[in-house]
């Protein structure tokens, strides 16, 4: 077994300290009894209490969750369709434009995506608010879904699909009985990616929102601009906790799925 040199140990330690220290400090100071960000005033959970008493924060959190679930679900369906089109449908008419449209939003600065979607909604005379945020989030997250699902589609054994088609399955049934179960872990992690991207988005939501629809990042942003508030520490810590738990569960699930899949594939390969 290789041993890590001192240099490697030091760089890993420093690197992970840099990555985690700010978040750890944020969580610790969310339990600070005092209002100050630097002076420790003893342990307290009162800021968590005031988070749950603030109707504005709760409303914003609820809207954010609704936007996230709705947009991630539609984006997962559309993005999976786009991934199938790119990975399975060969060279169709307009494929170059299509793949450019799918990949471009991945690197597009958010300010541009936000501005262009807003101008579209204005041109269409749509009332801006909850639904325009949902439409915008579907648009930019479905591209991430398409990339994640496509990489899974391009790495699996197509002969299973072909066998199903040969045995009289319709393409539709083949998808639901063969393809979808195999790519399901990728589809689920794509949904989670879309969901967290939607929860996280400040810029696009700020452009495309209207009266009455304030998402949590927008609320946090406007509070932060007015100065650091202990409640913000508390709500940020809650979000960190939720995300950490979700990611750990997801990675355990995918790990489990992968072990199962490998076992099944080994069994299939060894079958007479």
């Amino acid at each position, binding site marked *: 077994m290789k041993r890590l040199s001192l240099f*490697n140990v030091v760089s*890993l330690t420093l690197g992970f300290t*840099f*990555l985690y220290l700010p978040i750890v400090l944020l969580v610790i100071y969310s339990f600070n009894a005092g209002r100050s960000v630097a002076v420790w005033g003893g342990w307290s959970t009162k800021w968590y209490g005031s988070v749950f008493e603030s109707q504005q924060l709760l409303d914003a959190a609820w809207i954010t969750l609704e936007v996230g679930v709705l947009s991630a679900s539609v984006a997962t369906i559309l993005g999976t369709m786009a991934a199938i089109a790119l990975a399975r449908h060969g060279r169709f008419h307009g494929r170059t434009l299509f793949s450019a449209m799918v990949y471009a939003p991945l690197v597009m600065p958010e300010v541009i995506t936000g501005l262009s979607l807003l*101008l579209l909604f204005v041109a269409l005379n749509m009332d801006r608010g909850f639904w325009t945020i949902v439409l915008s989030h579907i648009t930019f997250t479905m591209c991430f879904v398409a990339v994640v699902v496509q990489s899974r589609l391009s790495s699996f054994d197509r002969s299973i699909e072909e066998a199903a088609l040969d045995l009289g399955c319709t393409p539709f049934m083949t998808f639901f009985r063969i393809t979808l179960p195999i790519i399901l872990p990728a589809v689920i992690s794509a949904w989670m990616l879309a969901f967290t991207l939607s929860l996280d988005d400040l810029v696009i939501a700020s452009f495309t929102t209207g009266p009455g629809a304030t998402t949590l990042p927008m609320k946090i*942003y406007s509070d932060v601009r007015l100065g650091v508030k202990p409640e913000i520490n508390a709500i940020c810590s809650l979000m960190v906790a939720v995300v950490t738990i979700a990611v750990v569960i997801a990675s355990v699930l995918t790990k489990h799925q992968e072990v199962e899949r490998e076992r099944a594939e080994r069994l299939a390969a060894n079958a007479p």
Partner: protein
Amino acid sequence: MANPFQAQNRRWMVTAIPYLWMVVFFLVPFFIVLKISFSNSEIAQPPYSPVFDFLIDGWDETLDKLASLTTDNYLRLIQDSIYSSSYLSSLWIAGSSTAMMLFIAYPIAYGMARAPKSWRPTLVMMVILPFWTSFLIRVYAWIAILSEEGLLNSALTWLGVIDEPIQILSTNTAVYIGILYSYLPFMVLPLYSNLEKMDDSLIEAAKDLGCTQIGAFWRVTFPLSLPGVIAGCFLVFIPAVGEFVIPDLLGGSDTIMIGKTMWEEFFNNRDWPAASGVAIALLIILMIPIMIFQTNEARQQEAGR
């Protein structure tokens, strides 16, 4: 029995639905931005003119309106120094933080690739995990650390390094720290996936042939890792140029970056045509790095096969 016509139909829809969606919500908005960047700013609703409505205007008036389109917004981009200096300072801040990032990320990625195989998935997950927590939260966390009565100043005063608090928040230094922190995974992961695949025997061969440890690194490891370096640099550079949240929250009033200028043009001045012009110019500037990045990726995929 399955109807073959129907099956063909569904297959066609799988492409058509997302295709149509992206045309309506990505391609069409882009042309609207392009059109508005040639419009005049107005104090009206919507705050620009002309507003085309072919059904009401008919042919002649549409032509008149076409004639009233202007290139003033682009002339202003060149003439007004606020725009040119925001473009230059965005490119400078993004470029120099990308270079600094390479110095920080390379040792981390290298250490991860050298770690025992059983640790590697955990290390990768530890790099990704902060990326899943909100971007805004990660930037916000630095406000408490860098502010005048913040944790860094308290720690330095307590250690006796400084006598009175130094200003870090609201300076470009804070913007650099914010970018380095927020985009670190984008640099570490491509470097790691490249270094991890590297064949150790090449380095052993170099050493056998008389190379020192450091010589072997510069002559073998680093040149072989260049595709990962390129991928990482562009993944950091491209979004950093258009960054808004970091310069807005961590930077000061003298921090000018193009994303922030565009935001202010839009939300504070309500000058939609100017904001559109800034957006189009930003896209044109980013087109070159995006194309280099995609060529690099395509070449990597070809090589992987």
